[in-house]
């Protein structure tokens, strides 16, 4: 099997999952698709090195996350986040119930990535620290802070699930 075939097989098997991760990060399916394609293109370009990684999917997730964070950095000077805009309406009307995805949208990009990697992708603290290239202590403290923020935002019945 050629390197291209190996890449295509891996990418086909994981593209949907990568897009889902990207969607949880950005809450936009079209952007998620673009980010997935960007990540796969970068993976293809570094395929020879990538296949030597212990966990190829984690390696690809790392590329995806960096693509997303790069995208946000470029956009951050001109955009306001939907979370900041949505919060006042939610505060004024307690009947409105945020979904978990909505609540994640209120977290800063890196914190959102930490929660997704820790609690959806089931990465260890060390793996998250490696992917995001931050110290383990930062992952731990940011995780605590993010969970606390999510508790603030979510309705009582949802809170009971991870209280």
């Amino acid at each position: 099997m050629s390197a291209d075939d190996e890449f295509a097989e891996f990418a086909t098997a994981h593209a949907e999952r990568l897009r889902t991760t990207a969607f949880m990060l950005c809450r936009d399916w079209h952007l998620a698709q673009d980010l997935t394609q960007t990540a796969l293109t970068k993976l293809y370009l570094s395929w020879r090195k990538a296949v030597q990684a212990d966990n190829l999917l984690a390696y690809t997730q790392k590329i995806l996350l960096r693509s997303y964070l790069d995208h946000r950095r470029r956009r951050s000077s001109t955009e306001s986040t939907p979370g900041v805009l949505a919060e006042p309406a939610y505060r004024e009307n307690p009947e409105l119930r945020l979904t978990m995805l909505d609540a994640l949208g209120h977290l800063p990009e890196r914190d959102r990535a930490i929660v997704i990697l820790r609690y959806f992708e089931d990465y260890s603290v060390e793996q998250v620290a490696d992917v995001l290239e931050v110290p383990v202590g930062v992952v731990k403290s940011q995780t605590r802070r993010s969970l606390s923020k999510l508790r603030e935002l979510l309705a009582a019945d949802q809170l009971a699930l991870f209280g």
Partner: protein
Amino acid sequence: MTEDLRALLRDDLNAERPPPLGDVVGAALRDGKRIRRGRRRLAVGGGAAAVVGVLAGVVVVGGALTSPAAAPGELGGVAAAPVPDVGVVPGRRVTPTVTAPMQGGAAKVTAPGFPPPSVPISPTVAASPGHTRTLAIPSGTLRPAEKQKEATPAAMAYLLTQLLPSAQTSSYAVVPGGELGVRVFIDDKLGPGNVQLTVARGDAGTPRPARGEMAKVTIVTYAVECGRAMSVTAEWPDGTTVRIDVDSCPPPGGSRGLPALVADPEAAARIAADPRWGVTMDASLVDIGGQRYPRLPGLAG
């Protein structure tokens, strides 16, 4: 707790209606191969430049050391090595066959937030011309399908955003110098850049011929790290000239490169040769453009 959180996220995801995934794998393969080809070309070009540089050094040093009787083309009696032909002919200046030069120097911003500072627009032609290709692209139409109105930068911005392949666009602005044109910042999956599109109609003789079926499209790509990356000019028999200039300064570190449009000049050629460009455009484009971009900022020249 982990399972609970994951279950909440799964519930939310199950409630989503994602669009079909599409051929992201095929697209990634195509883009990746295209980038690899570009890198190889750059490497070959860089190697050739190094060879030329070394030879030039040898000529200078050798010229000082050898006798005045040495024959031309020889260095102290040793024949000069041939320079490999990699598409760049030393000493030959490559210019687009039709010019619609941009006015002024590097763009000075008048609109807030435009353009991103890392991507300047170069004045006229880049310093190191690269490869030139000429294509003939059929328009597929002899006359406009719709009633025509005088073209506006807003209509051009609207049509350009419709034609650019999967790029995010922002910072639309009218080009300086009184030309009919628009400038747009694009950021696609490969890299950022500024795209400037201008339309002009020169003297095509009297009586003016019909628009015609075939556009002559000239693509010039430049091997520069930062600045003018590509110019594409489409000429129509009626004297209409459509020119696209792409400038880019990829951030250092190699994580991002030139916009995909530069890696795919045929796509840029198809955009330039779209028969809807002109000093008059379809009324619907002008109307929609006016609604979408009612107040396009101008750039100082």
